[in-house]
């Protein structure tokens, strides 16, 4: 617990420089951009503020990260940026989670949260300034002590040095004095040529604790008097708890309490196993309403019907209103020599984080609650928990733990709300841990989707125009993030059209239309969100057009990318690296696809071996242009992981519904790729120096279409629905 507690020092809400209350010998620097609003009541829409750092008397620097560490390595990347500006010694730097306070709100979303691969890209410049300000203050403190001009001092490896006199003072000796100084408004930033850490594969600071078992994830939280709870939620979507006989659970040794929630029952016990036995002993009675009629075939039929009935509405674009888009595409398609239409489909998908949903809550003496949560959505979590308990948000304190995988699932805070309600009802601190089966059955799933894509082609197969129409459930009605977006800048849900809203390709007149078709299945943000299905649809379709045109799929894409230099760059990079076009051994085939999101552009070639229906993933070449890159090695690992995530979904991923409930339970029916099935990788991070984009989600979207396109080359058949095992394929490993 020590690590968690020290990770949550207090900071002034206005973000002013403030000494640590507990330790006079440390420097706490909080910086912020001009505040829109500040103060306790404005904690969720307050200042646009950035990171800060703590310098101990021994000179050890703790960087407080406002980005939940889900495995993406952003906490270390933040430290890299600050370490460069401050000239720190990397071996004397650590990270901790910043508390949930306004100074740490992400400048783009004005929330304490991370999503959309924005942890670094939205904060990079502000972080540099934070570091440069701190450096200037440390220099000023040393110069004052030596009575020399600050300009005559330099900084080196965590110390201020005065080369003229050979003097040196470690930051730890200067922190207290520096903390009393006013941060300069516009400190000089270190020029790019002098960067030592940014752009380098620095070892991640969170990894040592992840190889010796000392890392504290949500499930590992320990508190005095802590009890463990587990939960059984209404299996049918929208179900409510009618009644439950507590007796059988209370008869289990170690079980202390049964707690009823509106849609669930929880058992509180001395440990997880007793709670598990208690929950297994219960026979809750659920009110399921009409929802048992819901099944996957019905969902699919409903999505197809939505498109057939013309429910898809053209999404407004800044440069063209829907009516103009419709007129332009109609004209293009009407005057084309032929129309080419294909329909694609994708299933619901689950996040399947290895760490099941969990949360720890302790009621406080003042009627508030303190929680330890593996969450990436602290701001919304606090509001949701406050609302559930009927207390002001200020009385909800969230400590962020390490997170055993997120992929979008930790945007939701259902487990945090439950933990708070159970702790309150039980009157003891409670750590709620879901079983794997509960985790699988109560996700916020990537929506199932159907898309119909139509192209108008001239006699010479030139593209005249294209229409993309998709039907899929929305995320906004269900997701905590949706609740924010819905109320903020996005009056119309766009998630169902991501990647398809603006194509990188020049396809002539174009429009994208979306029929948000809510079917009663709880949906949410899944790594790469709408790109995950729409890149499959679009990139499969482009591949089909290449075939129609009798063109090589790389050449065909290249022709359509004349106005998209970043996409052209990554396409050319993977084509060159993979030796695209060279003769391949018998039974070996390749496919290609692009993707573009979060300000980054990607291209992927996959090489597969096919023997009948048995498929082996041989190698992946992947090029990403994410602009300026803080840690290229870390980016490569994110891409490898993202590609494996996307390939896993393409091969075997699906959540199906029968009788209103999810059919899958544990990993036996949610198969994940294993080491034996993983391909070799060659990932290229293109150093174009452009605007910084995201990297956490960027490996995912191109994986499915690249694989399906390779299978087309292998078999001559188009696979227009996922997962591919449903077409009879088996995958090695």
């Amino acid at each position, binding site marked *: 617990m020590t690590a968690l507690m020290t990770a949550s020092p207090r900071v002034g809400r206005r973000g002013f420089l403030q000494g640590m209350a507990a330790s006079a010998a440390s420097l706490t620097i909080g910086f912020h951009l001009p505040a829109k609003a500040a103060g306790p009541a404005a904690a969720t829409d307050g200042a646009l503020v950035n990171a800060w750092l703590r310098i101990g008397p021994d000179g050890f620097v703790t960087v407080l990260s406002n980005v939940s*560490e889900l*495995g993406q390595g952003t906490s270390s990347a933040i430290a890299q940026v600050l370490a460069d500006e401050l000239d720190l010694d990397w071996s004397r730097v650590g990270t901790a989670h910043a508390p949930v306070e306004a100074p740490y709100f992400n400048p783009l979303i004005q929330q304490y949260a991370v999503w959309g691969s924005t942890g670094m890209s939205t904060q990079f410049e502000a972080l540099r300034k934070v570091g440069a300000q701190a450096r200037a203050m440390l220099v000023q403190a040393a110069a004052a002590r030596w009575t020399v001009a600050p300009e005559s001092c330099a900084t080196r490896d965590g110390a201020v040095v005065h080369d003229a006199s050979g003097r040196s003072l470690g930051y730890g000796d200067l922190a207290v004095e520096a903390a009393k100084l006013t941060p300069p408004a516009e400190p000089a930033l270190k020029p790019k040529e002098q960067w030592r850490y940014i752009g380098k*594969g620095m*070892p*991640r600071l*969170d*990894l*040592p604790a*992840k*190889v*010796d*078992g*000392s*890392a*504290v*994830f949500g*499930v*590992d939280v*320990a508190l005095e008097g802590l009890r*463990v709870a587990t939960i059984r939620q209404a299996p049918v979507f929208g179900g409510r708890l009618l009644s439950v006989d507590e007796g059988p659970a209370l008869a289990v*040794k170690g079980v202390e309490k049964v707690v009823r929630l509106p849609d669930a029952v929880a058992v509180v016990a*001395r*440990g*997880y*196993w*007793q709670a598990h*036995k208690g929950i297994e002993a219960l026979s809750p009675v659920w009110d399921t309403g009409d929802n048992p009629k819901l099944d996957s075939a019905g969902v699919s039929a409903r999505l197809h019907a939505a498109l057939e009935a013309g429910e898809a509405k053209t999404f407004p674009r800044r440069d063209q209103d829907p009516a103009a888009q419709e007129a332009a595409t109609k004209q293009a398609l009407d005057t084309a020599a032929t129309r080419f239409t294909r329909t694609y489909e994708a299933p619901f998908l689950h996040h*399947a*984080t*290895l*760490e*099941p949903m969990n949360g720890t809550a302790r009621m406080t003496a003042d009627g508030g609650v303190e929680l330890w949560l593996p969450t990436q959505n602290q701001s919304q979590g606090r509001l949701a928990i406050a609302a559930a308990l009927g207390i002001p948000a200020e009385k909800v304190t969230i400590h962020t733990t*390490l997170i*055993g*995988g*997120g*992929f979008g699932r930790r945007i939701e805070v259902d487990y945090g709300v439950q933990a708070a309600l159970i702790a309150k009802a039980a009157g003891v601190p409670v750590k709620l*841990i879901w*079983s*794997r089966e509960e985790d699988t059955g109560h996700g916020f799933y990537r929506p199932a989707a159907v898309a119909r894509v139509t192209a108008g082609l001239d006699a010479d197969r030139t593209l005249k125009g294209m229409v993309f129409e998709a039907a899929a459930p929305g995320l906004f009605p269900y997701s905590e993030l949706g609740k924010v977006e819905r109320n903020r800048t996005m009056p119309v849900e766009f998630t169902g059209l991501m990647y398809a809203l603006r194509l990188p390709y020049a396809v002539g007149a174009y429009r994208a239309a979306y029929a948000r078709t809510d079917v009663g299945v709880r949906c949410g943000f899944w790594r790469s969100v709408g790109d995950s299905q729409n890149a499959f649809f679009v990139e499969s379709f482009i591949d089909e057009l290449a075939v129609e045109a009798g063109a090589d799929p790389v050449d065909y894409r290249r022709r359509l990318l004349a106005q998209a230099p970043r996409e052209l760059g990554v396409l050319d990079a993977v084509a060159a690296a993979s030796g695209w076009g060279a003769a391949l051994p018998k039974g070996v085939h390749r496919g290609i696809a692009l993707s573009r999101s979060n300000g980054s552009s990607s291209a992927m070639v996959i090489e597969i071996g096919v023997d009948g229906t048995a498929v082996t993933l041989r190698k992946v070449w992947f090029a990403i242009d994410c602009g300026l890159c803080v840690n290229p090695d870390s980016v490569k*690992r*994110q891409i*490898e*992981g*993202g*590609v494996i*995530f996307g390939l*896993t979904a393409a091969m075997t991923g699906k959540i199906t519904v029968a009788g209103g409930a999810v059919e899958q339970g*544990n*990993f*036996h029916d949610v198969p*994940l*790729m*294993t*080491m*034996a099935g*993983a391909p*070799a*990788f060659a990932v290229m991070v293109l150093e174009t120096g452009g605007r910084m984009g995201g990297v956490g989600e960027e490996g995912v979207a191109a994986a499915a279409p690249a694989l399906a396109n390779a299978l087309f080359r292998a078999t001559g058949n188009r696979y227009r629905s996922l997962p591919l095992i449903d077409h009879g394929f088996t995958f090695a*490993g």
Partner: protein
Amino acid sequence: MAYTLTVNGRRRTVDVDGDTPLLWVLRDELGLTGTKFGCGAGLCGACTVHLDGTATRSCTVPVEAAAGTAVTTIEALSPDRSHPVQVAWLAEQVPQCGYCQSGMIMAAAALLKETPKPTEAEIDAAITNLCRCGTYPRVKQAILRAAAGA
């Protein structure tokens, strides 16, 4: 009822039901939380420990079956992250979220003890732990690095 087993070199006695999985004895009774809960069904390997030297998924071993054995968890693989597998893991920067990595490392350490120079195929066959972050290419590299003594 009371069960006695040796955990990380120390004799420990716990008073739990005999069907309590070793995983929950380690985590809830002994406070050794480096061993993770992923599935409770022996499918993911996040709970892998060494039972008398053999890589074992502790979520499916009832404590009554583990009594009298010697259990090693990630916390005691080495006192200072100096086990060759841990060294290789950091050199290759393997973990992402890190949740599966205790189990991966314990599985890898057991593999290398049995097969000091495994082929890639032997690694594929032996390491069936699930990693949702997709660290497999790095896991394999790290095992090969540890085997090479680099």
